């Protein structure tokens, strides 16, 4: 197990390194740099050169990259070009804001979707199953920003029940009740999309397991249906579901740019789009790094949870009996 973890961590470091090299290179290769976005067109070439030097953009890309890595290893994410603010000052608050939004949506969708999916697998093509299908179609087919706008129109504009946008009412920062009111609409949007996926996965996975011989055996032994479902079927059925959920983990910080924009949620998805337009390399690199890290952690966690839900999976054994 330890050996396995060490190997995975070493792999992760290598992957992260490659990701940073590639994204740094691509970003600098893209036409139009931060200077192009910032400079006033009439500026003299000498003044432009001074600006470039101030920003360190006059150096070759590999030197810029090495400097960036050097600073990163000392915990310095860099500064923005535009107003020289430390990247962390902008980034960490948005990461937290996104985490609040996404974790509520994520938690809620699992709480609803997994039990619902299990229930539907036992009552295939029943009313509840049909409803789930409709929800899934809607969730997949509706553009999230559009659904968000519709909810805003009805609940915020016409009924005037809920706030239109933002995370807090100004002056009420830190009040839980205020936060909850602001969470309702965006969480509804995000949850619907997640539920659509999770219900279908859970149901499909359960149905597959329920057809297995050992389930038939269990039933033949006269075991109670409850016990069959929860004891024998569920543990196996959850493995693919865990994979999906693990892969979704990075969205907890990456956020959902469109939903955040529509609800003016001060999160990271929005920040990423904004910074990409402004070509703020250090912010973009930090976000890329953070998301990559979450992808790696998400995968690792999914693997570890396999071992928990399915004892047959033994981590770290090559060519073992693992399914």
């Amino acid at each position: 197990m330890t050996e396995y973890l060490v190997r995975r961590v070493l792999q992760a470091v290598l992957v992260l390194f490659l990701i940073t090299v590639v994204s740094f290179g691509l970003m600098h290769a893209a036409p139009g740099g931060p200077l192009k976005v910032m400079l006033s067109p009439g500026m003299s070439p000498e003044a432009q050169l001074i600006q470039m030097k101030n920003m360190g953009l006059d150096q070759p890309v590999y030197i810029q990259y090495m400097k960036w890595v050097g600073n990163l290893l000392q915990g310095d994410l860099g500064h923005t070009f535009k107003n020289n603010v430390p990247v962390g000052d902008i980034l960490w608050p948005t990461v937290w804001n996104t985490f609040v939004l996404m974790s509520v949506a994520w938690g809620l969708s699992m709480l609803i979707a997994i039990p619902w999916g299990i229930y539907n697998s036992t009552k295939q093509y029943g009313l509840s199953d049909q409803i789930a299908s409709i929800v899934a179609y809607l969730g997949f087919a509706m553009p999230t920003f559009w659904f968000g706008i519709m909810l805003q129109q009805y609940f915020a504009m016409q009924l005037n029940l809920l706030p239109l946008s933002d995370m807090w009412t100004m002056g009420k920062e830190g009040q839980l009740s205020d936060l909850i009111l602001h969470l309702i609409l965006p969480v509804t949007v995000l949850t619907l999309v997640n539920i659509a996926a999770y219900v279908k996965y859970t149901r499909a996975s359960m149905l597959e397991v329920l057809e297995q011989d050992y389930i038939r055996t269990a039933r033949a032994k006269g075991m109670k249906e409850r016990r069959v479902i929860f004891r024998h079927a569920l543990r196996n059925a959850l493995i693919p579901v865990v994979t999906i959920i693990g892969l979704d983990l990075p969205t907890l910080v990456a956020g959902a740019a469109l939903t955040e924009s529509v609800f003016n949620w001060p999160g990271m998805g929005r920040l990423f789009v904004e910074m990409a337009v402004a070509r703020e390399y250090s912010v973009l690199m930090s976000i890329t790094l953070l998301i990559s890290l979450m992808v790696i952690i998400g995968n690792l966690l999914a693997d570890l949870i396999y071992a928990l839900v399915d004892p047959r999976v033994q981590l770290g054994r090559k060519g073992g009996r693992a399914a």
Partner: protein
Amino acid sequence: MKKGKGWLKPLALLSLTGALLVGCSSGNNASPGTATPAPTQKTVEQVAPQATSTDDEKPVDGGTFTHSTTSDIVTINPIFGNDTASGDVMEYTQAYLYNRNPSFDLAVYPWSLAAELPKVSEDGLTYTIKMKNNAKWSDGTPITAEDLMFTINAIKTPETGSPEITKYDKVKEMKKLDDYTLEIKLTQLYAPFAFGLMQKLAPAHVLKDVPFKELQAHSYGKDPAKTPTSGPFKWSEWKQKEYHVLDANPDYWGEKKPHIQKVVYKIYADQNTQVQALMKGDVDLVDSIPVTQLEAVKAKGTINISTEPGPSYEYFAFNFDKKNFPNNYGLFEGQKTRQAIAHAINRQGIIDNILKGTGKIMDAPFLPGTWADPGDAAVHYEYSAEKAKQLLKEDGWVAGADGILAKDGNRFSFEFIFNSGNSRREQAAVVIQQNLKEIGIEAKPKALDFSALVDQYANPGKFQVLLLGWQLSDPDPDGISTFGKKAFPPGNNAGWYDNPKLDALWEKAVSTVKQDERAAIYKEVGKEISTNLPYVFMYQYGTPRGMTSRVKYKDEFKPVSMIPYGETFGFLNWWIDDTKK
């Protein structure tokens, strides 16, 4: 030379989402009085700002005004901040030496730092500026000639990296005559210098010991706690990417104190949400309402809308460098050919149908209504396919087998580029393509990412035709940095336009100090440039602006669309009336 014209930044990325929500109804008012539309068109009435209060209503003190935006500031240090958001926040927090008046000229108001208009010596080389002697920074330090001298010095020094550097590059020396009087000597006669004095100051007592090259990294202008301000409002709080809180400075030095006690500058990621917030009453001012949502906002009834165009214009720029065309055959060599294209494009039609009336035809690169506007001296090209065809014929173009005109074996076919994401420009491009097709010209529109367009096409001057806008944020009308030979790429003259007669006129105008003599020269400029046509000047344009009806002002203090930051002109005289809510 920076002449205050910035490449217009593309509209907020997500503005597209706005288009989905509200279908446009076709209830536009037809008004026969405006311009000269083709007979089949409906002309959309332009709505100018109106007073929202009668003369007998008395202002009340208090209340919060919420100004909304789609981008955050860079800094409120006047040496560096020259983007719209920074400018907005500075309008409330930093005082100008001289303000602009509604006709875009230098003016002294109770809220200006100057005591009187600058005195200019007979030879036009020496400016004497007298400042008020009671002005104070919000930390209590007096505002003096020292601050002015420091600000000009910092901006003109290249190490500082100020984007405004060209405003003061002709300053030779400065001398303090007393604590409140500064004498500035120029290296050469240069009339636009006076307009450069519409300047907000940086505090010498905070920054004078900071080396110039470290000024940009300094916390002044970025940290509210370390940023004393000179204007009526203090900068109390900045929540990055979310909002700014500006509180009325209780010790403000100006004679006229603001009625409104608090301004919130609130940032939205999405234009649609911003407009919804206006309708809900979460915000009081939206600078640009997408035209697709205009009807819905109007229907709400509680929002005052203005559709007067702002200080920007759209242009269709020809490239005169033959290397950009097949066989090195410059398609736009003939003056008549260019004039034909000007006749062929239905500019009023675009204004009415795409800009929904928020535009006004322009024939020369001067803001209509300002002192330099050449008015009728500029040639007007009315929409007429017949005239266009006639001119093309005279210039030797003959229709080929495929219906496209040709001359000396060269087809009249070109590509015109513009930035993607600006839905109005995208729609206008389609109309232009159609209009030109009608007269036998094949014009192929191509949308490109803004930054790439500037970097790879406009700056190196490599394109055939460029459809873009200029912002005339500098009050001086000088245009040599856009049309002169010395502004060849990578300068602003991206189309390699070379007209020695015009260059001479521009030069003459900036070395003439008397404004009426300058205006006469600009009449000649207007005539020459509209005859010769480096561009087809399309129209002055803007975006509709909306303000909640709880904001009250009298006629003399109403918003002015045409000058930059004019939407809050007279803000100190505004008040909030919540009684009728």
